[in-house]
């Protein structure tokens, strides 16, 4: 059974169409990332799934319930980590987790949750004394304390330094190991790449690509880029005719995009060896998720009047 099912979802704020017909499904136990630039409709989509927003059109199912009417029964089974939300600043970490745990039918033990997010030495500290990163980990702890089947993480590491991000990723990985379904929004490519089983890229309120991070946008069957510097004295026209693809000069190098990298390399290196010369700065790269992302999300956005 799918944990989340979204079909034809639409939502407008007055003139502004934030979401213009989105479809996707998240399987149980899967980590699914919604990737996209600011304004792409990620948060609107997630907040509809969380029950904060009404939708204008489309079908939405979260754990078999309609989030617009799921109410308490649904909230008992999901954990929500918002982009930013206030804290009961005068309570301690342990106090607030005990308070929130008490809202749920089967909460996780407070101490266990505190250890899970690595706040063990801050358990008795007032929340207002925590650093920003520690408060963010408490956000995650509050999302987990009800032992949810499904966890929403809205940009969980935005503003983190690299090591804090790495630690959060490890934590999220460990949640997956517990069998939780996770819906994550992010605008970091590497985050989606590292955490998600599947990714949907949103741009201007639509899904422009969906799939595993490795196959997204035809990455696994797309063109490979071969780049090198021409040997001294050689011109572009001197390159052998049998090359698959058309070599193009780019700054001081030559670039060749091809779907047959093996043959291209054989022809190229054979040519260079025959001349007794080295191909300087030779690189072979496949398009990164970032390339795909930039290509897909750079399509001009329809104007908002």
């Amino acid at each position: 059974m799918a944990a989340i099912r979204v079909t034809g979802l639409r939502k407008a704020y007055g003139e502004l169409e934030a979401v213009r017909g989105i479809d996707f499904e998240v399987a149980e136990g899967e980590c699914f990332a919604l990737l996209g630039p600011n304004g792409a409709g990620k948060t609107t989509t997630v907040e509809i799934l969380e029950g904060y927003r009404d939708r204008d059109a489309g079908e939405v199912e979260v754990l078999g319930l309609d989030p617009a009417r799921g109410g308490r029964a649904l909230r008992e089974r999901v954990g929500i980590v918002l982009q930013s939300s206030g804290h009961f600043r005068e309570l301690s970490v342990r106090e607030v987790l005990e308070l929130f745990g008490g809202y749920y039918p089967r909460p996780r033990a407070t101490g266990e949750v505190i250890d899970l997010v690595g706040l063990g030495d801050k358990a008795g500290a007032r929340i207002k004394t925590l650093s920003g990163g520690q408060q963010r980990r408490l956000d995650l702890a509050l999302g987990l304390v009800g032992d949810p089947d499904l966890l929403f993480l809205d940009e969980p590491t935005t503003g983190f330094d690299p090591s804090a991000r790495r630690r959060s990723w490890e934590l999220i990985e460990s949640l997956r190991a517990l069998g939780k379904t996770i819906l994550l929004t992010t605008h970091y490519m590497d985050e989606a790449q590292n955490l998600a089983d599947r990714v949907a890229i949103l741009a201007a309120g639509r899904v422009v690509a969906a799939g595993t991070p490795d196959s997204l946008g035809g990455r696994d069957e797309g063109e490979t880029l071969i780049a090198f510097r021409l040997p001294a004295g050689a011109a572009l026209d001197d390159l052998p005719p049998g090359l698959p693809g058309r070599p193009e000069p780019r700054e001081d190098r030559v670039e060749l995009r091809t779907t047959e990298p093996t043959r291209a390399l054989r022809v190229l290196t054979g040519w260079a060896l025959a001349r007794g010369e080295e191909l300087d700065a030779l690189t072979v790269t496949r398009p990164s998720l970032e390339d795909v992302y930039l290509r897909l999300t750079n399509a001009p956005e329809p104007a908002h009047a």
Partner: protein
Amino acid sequence: MPDAASAAARPSDLGLLWRQLRAQNKLFLRNPFSAFFSLAFPVMFLLLFGSLNGGGRIEELGNIRYIQFLAPGMLAFAVISTCYTGLVTGVAINRDEGLLKRVRGTPLPPWAYISARIGSAVWFSMVSAVVMVVAAVLLFRVEVIGRMLPAAVVTLLLGAACFCALGMAVAAVIPNGEAAPVIANFTFFPIAFVSDLFFPTAGAPAWVGTVGSIFPVKHFSVALGNTFNPLVQGSGFQWGHLAVMALWTVIGVVAAVRFFRWEPKVDAPGGGRRRTRRAGRAAEPDPTG
């Protein structure tokens, strides 16, 4: 189905309410500003006005001592500070911080959260009322009249309920937390001075009486003041004033239920592209991201 199972294991409503109420009380006590504002501020006024005009008497009220008039006025002031001003600013600021949105994302029923906040405000308004009465009796030998004590307690409780309801209603409609203290004070202090809170208005021009009678503050202070006036006969229940307070309570509840928002109003980043939209619902969130 998991629904049935979770319904069976659900924490009881009463337990939820009780734990949330205790948490709200803890938050209140640990915040030095709220504690000071609610408990110490009105007592300060009692000391100030009481000392400045200690021996005065009020001709229009049968020549009773001014302090016997002032003490119930400051009781009403304490209740209004805690319930009205406290809730308007507290709720609006917590909404701006996203705290209300966080709570809304949990299974805690909204009524339980709202009731706990109101319950906590009522509790501390009663604590501050007791502090006030003790201070008034010890420092100024204010007379507490036993036969009218039940009327005084009922009036205090109804006043607390009324100003909690109005506080929630105003918190619901104000734009943001920064405006909250200004709006709370601006909607209270001008009215306070025409409402027999600090000074009697019996000798003032007629319009002062008329304006004061529209709003609930004067009905509260007069109803409470009468229960401290030794010249008033009987049990001291001021049914007319209590009825007006009840009416304002209903208005407050209806407005609060109708307009309450769990999320702040946010303008779209990048400036004003949503400014033209006014027709939608009151609370629209940030559509981006």
